């Protein structure tokens, strides 16, 4: 077997002839600055080589404790909550993505303190994580936005890859909560949108999330910190907004107040599911205000509780025009199986089938099947 030239010899030949392997990175080519001048970050302190830290104090708007509610299954003191967010070098949670900025906020005495760790180069990562681990009390609850499917995985991976033991904390992901409350009411559920539309916050100069990875890589190569500062404040704002959002959500969950643009039907369902009185009230209100879906949901709730009169009154009202398939089917079931009034059931089904608004396809088949069964039952009796 012939021995081919060394890899490097081959590489330089390929380069010379313009056939070097193309590198499909997304970064622009740029000469790396290996030893950029000492980073000057006002307000930050380099606590280990390449690991920077700062603490910023903000006004605390959180109550001393959160009452037991659907949001928190038991009383939770604010000082045990950790609001966190990361800024990363990529979008995936793969092993090559690194959180270069990890920030977290917590209640400290009368203020809300936000601590940020900034990784100024790769080799500092292990020490940054060790510091972070010391900061996170074991019994704290994390509050995040999309942390359950993103940030927490990434942080776990980083601890693992640096061979540092780390126990995952309990986590409340406000993205899921927000989706329930605002999915049908806002154009999207990004934290920025909710800040603006619900919390009434107007952000100052900011940087789009998609540009953040390149800011860090650019910093590594040039030492330029201008855009980095925007990333720091972006992270700071995200964390502070999380605390405001939690406060608002808590109020919404407990008091169901007017305002805040949230979806009352959706919240009502959730509260009812957890057996809360407030859920029933919300749904009733929604139904009174003309929400058909609230009516349907409520009627099924009454049906399960065998409160037939209440259920029937809703069905009758829904079926005012005679052609509400849901109501017709529910009533037909009721008359057939509960009050065994086959005639009444049959006339409802018949009327539906003969109407110009009669359903097609499978739904029609179902109605016909019911009609035929009712006819048979009528003959026998």
């Amino acid at each position, binding site marked *: 077997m012939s021995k*081919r030239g060394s*890899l490097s010899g081959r590489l330089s030949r390929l380069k010379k002839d313009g056939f070097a392997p*193309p590198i499909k*990175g*997304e970064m622009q080519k740029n000469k790396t600055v290996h030893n950029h001048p000492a980073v000057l970050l006002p307000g930050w302190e380099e606590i280990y080589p390449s690991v920077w830290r700062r603490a910023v104090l903000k006004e605390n708007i959180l109550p001393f404790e959160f009452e037991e509610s659907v949001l928190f299954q038991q009383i939770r003191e604010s000082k045990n909550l950790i609001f966190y967010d990361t800024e990363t070098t990529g979008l995936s949670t*793969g092993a*090559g993505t690194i959180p270069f900025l990890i920030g977290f906020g917590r209640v400290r005495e009368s203020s809300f303190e936000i601590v940020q760790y900034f990784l100024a180069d790769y080799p500092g990562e292990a020490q940054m994580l060790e510091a972070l681990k010391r900061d996170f009390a074991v019994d704290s609850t994390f509050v995040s936005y999309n942390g359950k499917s993103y940030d927490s995985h990434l942080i776990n*991976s980083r601890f693992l*890859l640096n061979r540092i033991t780390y126990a995952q904390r309990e986590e409340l992901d406000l993205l899921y909560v927000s989706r329930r409350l605002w999915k049908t009411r806002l154009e999207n559920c990004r934290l920025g949108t909710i800040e603006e539309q619900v919390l009434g916050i107007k952000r100052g100069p900011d940087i789009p999330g998609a540009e953040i990875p390149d800011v860090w890589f650019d910093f590594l190569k040039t030492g330029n910190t201008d855009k980095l500062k925007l990333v720091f404040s972006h992270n700071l704002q995200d964390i502070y907004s999380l605390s405001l959002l939690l406060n608002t959500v808590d109020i919404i969950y407990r008091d169901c107040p007017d305002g805040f643009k949230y979806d009352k039907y959706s919240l009502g369902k959730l509260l009812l599911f957890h057996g809360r009185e407030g859920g029933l009230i919300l749904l009733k209100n929604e139904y009174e205000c003309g929400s058909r879906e609230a009516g349907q949901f409520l009627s099924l709730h009454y049906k399960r509780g065998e409160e037939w009169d209440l259920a029937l009154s809703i069905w009758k009202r829904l079926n005012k025009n005679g052609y509400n398939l849901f109501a017709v089917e529910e009533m037909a079931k009721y008359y057939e199986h509960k009050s065994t009034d086959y005639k009444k059931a049959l006339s409802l089904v018949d009327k539906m089938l003969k109407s110009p608004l009669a359903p097609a396809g499978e739904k029609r088949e179902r109605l016909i099947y019911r009609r035929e069964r009712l006819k048979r039952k009528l003959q026998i009796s």
Partner: protein
Amino acid sequence: MDKITAIINSFKGDKNFISSVTRWEHIPQRDGSYAELPDDLNITIRDSLSNQGIKKLYTHQKICYETARSGKDLVVVTPTASGKTLCYNLPVLQTLMESEDSRALYLFPTKALSQDQQSSLNEIVVDGNLPIKVCTYDGDTPGSLRISARKSGKIIISNPDMLHSGILPNHPKWIEFFKSLKYIVLDEVHTYRGVFGSHMTNLVRRIKRIAQFYGSDPIFICCSATIGNPRELAEQILGKEVVLIDENGAPSGEKHIILYNPPLVDPVQGIRRGIVLESQRLALKLLKQGVKTIIFARSRVKTELISSYLNKSLANHYNQNYRIKVEPYRGGYLPRERRMIEKGLRDGSISGVVSTNALELGIDIGGLDASILAGYPGSISSAWQQAGRAGRSNRVSLAIIIASNSPVDQYLTQNPDYFFGSSPESGFVDPDNLYILIDHIKCAAFELPFRKGDTFGGDISELLEYLEENGVLRYTGESWYWADRSYPSETISLRSGAEENVVIIDSTRGKSEVIGEMDSHSARELIFEEAIYIHKGDQYKVLTLDLKNHLCYVEESTVNYYTDSILKTDIKVLEVDEEENQFGVKLISSDILVRNEVSKYKKIKFQTHENIGYGDIFLPEYEMHTRSTILSFDEDTASRIAFDRVPEELQAPVMARFATLVKNTAPIFLLCGRGDIGVAGRVRDPHFEIPGLYIYDNYPGGIGLAEGFHIQMKKILEASLSLIQKCNCREGCPSCVGPCDDRDEFTGNPKEATTLFLQEWLQVLI
């Protein structure tokens, strides 16, 4: 007498048929050689096997068990129906039963194969109530099952592509799995050759790196079809020594294997009846007798042609085509279409199938009685696998291998010992193809930083520096870190070159329907503008080929011809690595620049296959940098002395014919397609200024074939001589040195001159 025996007897009595048979190999039923189940075998596994009627092992299964259990990496050669799955399942299951934390990874080259293997594993695991969770983890696995597979899957069944883009880049999520990984099974390891194999070699380097990070050192169990160098191939892919287990203890049913060379139509030009017509004729005989038959065709186009001819011949409105249903099957069909056909074959509603090699590998299609190979499938091991598709269940079976006019086919039909003797073909990979290596170093750096001094199949520090220069790695604290926002494996395909597949869209009457896809390399040569493309028996004409956006628009068409493109090649030597004198010629290893151009195509009439005209192709030239072995006829070497004796006017034709011979025979020994290597002859080479022949890898950066040529050269030259000597034609034909279409340029007989030249030169080999 059963149907198959009846038809075998009728063939025996058919004089016309027999006159075309070059070898009728009757392989009698063979008894197995058995060994006791291992003494230490877990009782639950033992019971489970016993419930399936397995009370002893074949000898090779036992040796595999002992070898793997003693901690050695191995490759086992597994012909069809040799009980392959137990070779790896047994040691793996035993280890998993002994220690609860152990894990195993099974890799199959295709998704279809993994599905099949999961069901065979389930027979032991589920039916035997073994507490071992087996999970398939591929692109089709729903998100809800992925988490539990990662956390609690004891055996993960996957494919190289998923490992490459899904598992390895996310290895921290797989910590439980990697830290206890005891075995890695690589099935069908002979398919990991060429481009795919070169990728696989690098993928194995990545797995080993990750396993090492988590403190595990898995044992590799490889399975290979019968090829010439299973051990060498496996050792190259794994980067370490392996134990070869190649005796086969399995019994086999009675088999008739017939090598069939269709009768000559034109003895002067050496033209024979075509394989499409012959296979269709023979298949009809079998199908009408109720013999379930599979016909293997060599290309997608031929698959479509044969099945549409068959269905036309069977067409009968009154009896639903004699109640015989024949379906084509090939890559490019949608998975749903494929599953329907597989099911039809199993339940018997389909009696015949015409397939490309897509059905060659283990996909379960039940027991068939006969297989017809319309041409050699490109390798002897594939031929055996395809022939083995019939008669799995110890019944008498028949395989007819029909030779085409192609030189490989003619060579093998005329030298049946190659087919029935020990395998001459060897698989090669290039673990250090720079393009492929660099791609995998990127992926590996994403997975874990490279520390200074880390190796990756060898020293790679300069390649790391190159990546650093280009800004995707950062060197700091004595390590190279991934420094790009992208996810590198996403853009790197293991299967073909870096280029994406071209999607074929039917736009007839304003439709816009995806009907298939093709790699862009083939697309240049097959679906250029005005080309005829055949899909599921329907004919389409190509409207536009947009290589930049990987789209090809076609519309239905009804012309009476198909198309075939003509390729032109220029070569420039860039750098010579090494020179060596061997077999009367100087061998030069070098890097070369190849420039390819397809500028013309032929129109060939259906049925008669006559050439009815030419057309132009307007595609940009395609350049690549690759590896080459040059046979240089240096002063005073035997090759040069022989070549100098060729009359001057015949030197160019002889060189061209020698090139054709090498191109025709090399694929037999290098286990590659004819298109994977390029061969170009030069009477006076512009670089070395002497006569010579270039053999090069038709893939950027090389895939190990030019290097493999050194090892196999003696056999290739001997085969070239044998091919030309045994061919009956007078002046050359497509089956040996190519037809004599340059008649007006010289007076002598180029075939004779070429034969003489090779005889004189190759005396040195005797």
